């Protein structure tokens, strides 16, 4: 399989995968792709022959940018324990940035998101002093935060938040029909399916916009 080596275009997405978070997760993926970046996630491949941590470290190594949502601090309903996966991946990303000898890895940039401003100071006080953004649990806000951050760190002109939200609502309106056409239920849609659908949709939208009028 052809793998791109475009380090400066890959964004590692570290966020919860539960149903409640899904609207924000899908909105962030759409924003990253619409901004012209590639989204990398632990869910991008499912290989039982590979340990999860080695997969994550490999993805972190190949991604210049990282988006970490540490908003899921509630106790798990079944185990009554908190989930530590997101802070662990954030730690790995920051470790790669601080301890690596290569300039490429030292140049890593990350965005940390939480649902409420300054709440992180209560559960990860060591992050105090870092600029953490809040999406207030709304997909449109998360899209705006991701868009603004990507525009700032990549020094590239990107569509504005209003344009991205408009595109995304257009995409969401067409998604149910697309899924019915390809005989795929929304609950069955995996990360790779969603990324492929978003990419094809954005590419089609872009070719329609730049091509000759029909």
């Amino acid at each position, binding site marked *: *399989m*052809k*793998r*791109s080596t*475009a380090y400066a*275009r*890959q964004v590692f997405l570290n966020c919860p995968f539960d149903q409640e978070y899904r609207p924000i997760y899908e909105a962030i993926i759409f924003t990253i*792709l*619409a*901004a*012209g*970046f*590639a989204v*990398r996630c632990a869910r*991008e*491949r499912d290989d039982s022959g590979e340990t999860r941590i080695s997969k994550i470290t490999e993805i972190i190594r190949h991604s210049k940018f990282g988006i970490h949502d540490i908003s899921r601090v509630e106790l798990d309903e079944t185990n009554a324990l908190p989930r530590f996966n997101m802070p662990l991946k954030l730690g790995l990303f920051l470790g790669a940035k601080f301890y690596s000898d290569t300039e490429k890895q030292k140049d890593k940039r990350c965005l940390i998101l939480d649902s409420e401003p300054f709440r992180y100071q209560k559960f990860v006080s060591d992050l105090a002093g870092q600029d953490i953004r809040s999406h207030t649990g709304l997909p449109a806000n998360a899209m705006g935060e991701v868009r603004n951050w990507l525009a700032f760190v990549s020094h*590239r*002109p*990107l*569509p504005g938040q209003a*344009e991205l939200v408009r*595109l995304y609502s257009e995409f969401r*309106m*067409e998604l*149910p*029909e*697309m899924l*019915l*056409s*390809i*005989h*795929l239920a929304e609950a*069955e849609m*995996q*990360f*790779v*399916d969603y*990324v*492929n*659908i978003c*990419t*094809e*949709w*954005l*590419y*089609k*939208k*872009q070719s*329609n*916009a730049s091509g000759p009028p*029909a």
Partner: protein
Amino acid sequence: MIKVLKYDYDYGTGSVSRRKIRDAITSIHNKQRAFHQFVKIGNLVSVHRIISDAPGTKRRTQVFTGIVTGVGGTGESPAFIVSKATTSGSIERQFVLKDHTLLKIEAKPALRGMNSR
């Protein structure tokens, strides 16, 4: 709009092939374009729709040709009514643009009025 590079990173194929996704998107966009272009009251159109008599059985495409007699629905879900005259009377059918079984909408040449003798 920024230039989206197609598959900057190759994730491989998920549960559905990219060609199938592409075809579905193309079909939806063509349908939307045809709807805005041709579906106006008084126009003669052909609506292609997938019909399956029972779930899991062989599917076929049914073409319904008639005159658009109504355009409505909400902004998010437009609908239109097509009527055609048959020997036993008039048949009217309502189509919803977002119906995934609706394959395409074609414009037919305008009806020519009969000349008086």
